[in-house]
């Protein structure tokens, strides 16, 4: 009852509002083309019929929600998962490079953070470059990575995953630097009184203290990885994947396809963030976290 009041009602209200606004704009944006069509066909439909037509164009400027829903449903549930029109197949292609890139990115981020926390020179020299790396637009970098790697014979999953890595190592590195530095002075003094070695302090104090920071930054990183994988599919001439679906939809003005690929991407992103969140909560519980 409580969660119904505090979560479901507000979320549903916003959803209904968004869908209503979407319908209004679908009518407004599709109307000029429909008016054009009607004029050429010498038809003068009534208001209701006209609105109905704007919401059922085959290649609308803005597809209506139900058109996207139908397309999404057909391409998700009614197609065999091996078909290259299946959204599940395309989502899997993108997901596999997302996960590989995310794993690389998390590992790289942690290694960089450990280096920065333990080596003063790296703290001064590496951090500005890490921040600078994220100011370069990924759309400019992605094709170069693909081309350079293809030149040395690396193609397929790895180049796409590396673009995900490029986007996802950053939040993990920044979050872990903060996490590894999060132990209180008193806890560090305590380890000092025990004459603990640097590696004992690292494993017994810094690492466990950084775990909450790791999961928070991994939530950001996994979403960034997905964006990286989709962007990575755009300049590669990829034949499958959510990015490839978006590009193909754009070439052939299949606006409904674009939108349903977009929905598929959001669903994957939501699932990924949720999985990381659940993993974080399980780890927190196992580490004696106070139930909220």
């Amino acid at each position, binding site marked *: 009852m409580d969660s119904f009041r505090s979560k479901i009602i507000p979320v549903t209200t916003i959803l209904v509002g968004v869908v209503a606004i979407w319908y209004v704009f679908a009518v407004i944006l599709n109307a000029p083309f429909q008016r054009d069509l009607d004029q050429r066909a010498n038809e003068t439909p009534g208001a209701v019929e006209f609105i109905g037509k704007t919401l059922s164009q085959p290649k609308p400027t803005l597809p209506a929600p139900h058109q996207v829903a139908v397309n999404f449903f057909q391409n998700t549930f009614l197609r065999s998962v091996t078909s290259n029109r299946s959204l599940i197949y395309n989502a899997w292609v993108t997901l596999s490079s997302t996960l590989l890139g995310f794993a690389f990115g998390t590992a790289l981020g942690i290694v960089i953070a450990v280096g920065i926390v333990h080596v003063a020179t790296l703290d001064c020299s590496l951090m500005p470059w890490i921040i600078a790396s994220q100011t370069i637009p990924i759309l400019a970098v992605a094709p170069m990575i693909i081309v350079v790697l293809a030149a040395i014979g690396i193609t397929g999953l790895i180049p796409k995953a590396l673009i995900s890595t490029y986007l996802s190592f950053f939040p993990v590195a920044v979050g872990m630097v903060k996490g590894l530095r999060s132990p209180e002075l008193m806890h560090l003094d305590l380890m000092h009184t025990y*004459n603990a070695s640097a590696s004992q302090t690292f494993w017994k104090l810094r690492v466990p203290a950084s775990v909450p920071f790791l999961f928070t930054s991994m939530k950001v990183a996994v979403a960034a990885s997905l964006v990286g994988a989709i962007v990575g599919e755009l300049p590669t001439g990829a034949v499958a994947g959510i990015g490839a679906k978006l590009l193909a939809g754009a070439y052939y003005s299949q606006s409904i396809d674009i939108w349903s690929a977009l929905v598929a991407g959001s669903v994957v992103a939501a699932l990924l963030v949720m999985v990381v969140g659940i993993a974080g909560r399980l780890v927190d519980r196992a580490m004696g976290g106070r139930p909220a």
Partner: protein
Amino acid sequence: MSGQSPAVVSASKLGLTFQTNDGPVQALSNVDLTIGKGEFVSFIGPSGCGKTTLLRVIADLEKPTAGAISVNGMTPEQARESRAYGYVFQAAALFPWRTIERNVALPLEIIGLSKAEQADRIKRTMELVNLSGFEKKYPWQLSGGMQQRASIARALAFDADLLLMDEPFGALDEIVRDHLNEQLLSLWDRTNKTICFVTHSIPEAVYLSTRIVVMSPRPGRVTDIIESTLSRKRPLDIRETPEFLAIAARVRDGLRAGHSYED
């Protein structure tokens, strides 16, 4: 009383000056002090008198800038490296991701004791601080007093002869504090450890100590050292006896002489 026993801590002309952005701050100046084995020495004074700093110098958490200090006949650094003392902080400083018994085990893991030896020491120290039955609890499941008792157990498990305690009961209410004071005394009596205890409570200092070191601020220095005439066995109601009140009055006089009550 303390003269015959070998010195556990010995300081002469000890001084410590912190360099801050507002210029040098003299935290300790000209401290001469000898602490014998088995003594219970309290350091009392207003905040800023350097009592915590002195304890941190003994523990090698701060380096003195003048004078000399030895712990068990070694430099504080050597003493720390040979794990000569257990330190209890103002807060319990337990690791929230470890159960109480794993917290007590932390120093034992660091020294590299066997699992069996660890279990043995955990059991013994948990009994000493009356926490048996709470081994599997996480710190947040315990009251403040119990958490501080767990942190004392952790310091005891280290099994050093010297126990350094920095206002360990400062954040606790008076009832819990009385209780823990009583327990600490009986623990000291049973284990025969040397204890250095920082406090800003006069009754606490008089009740616990065999010697009371009165300190004053600006610069932090020792103004008086008072030998207690109370016997080792001290029930709580000893605090109403004339003997107790006389010592408390001397401590208060010492603080006043050091201008501790002035602004």
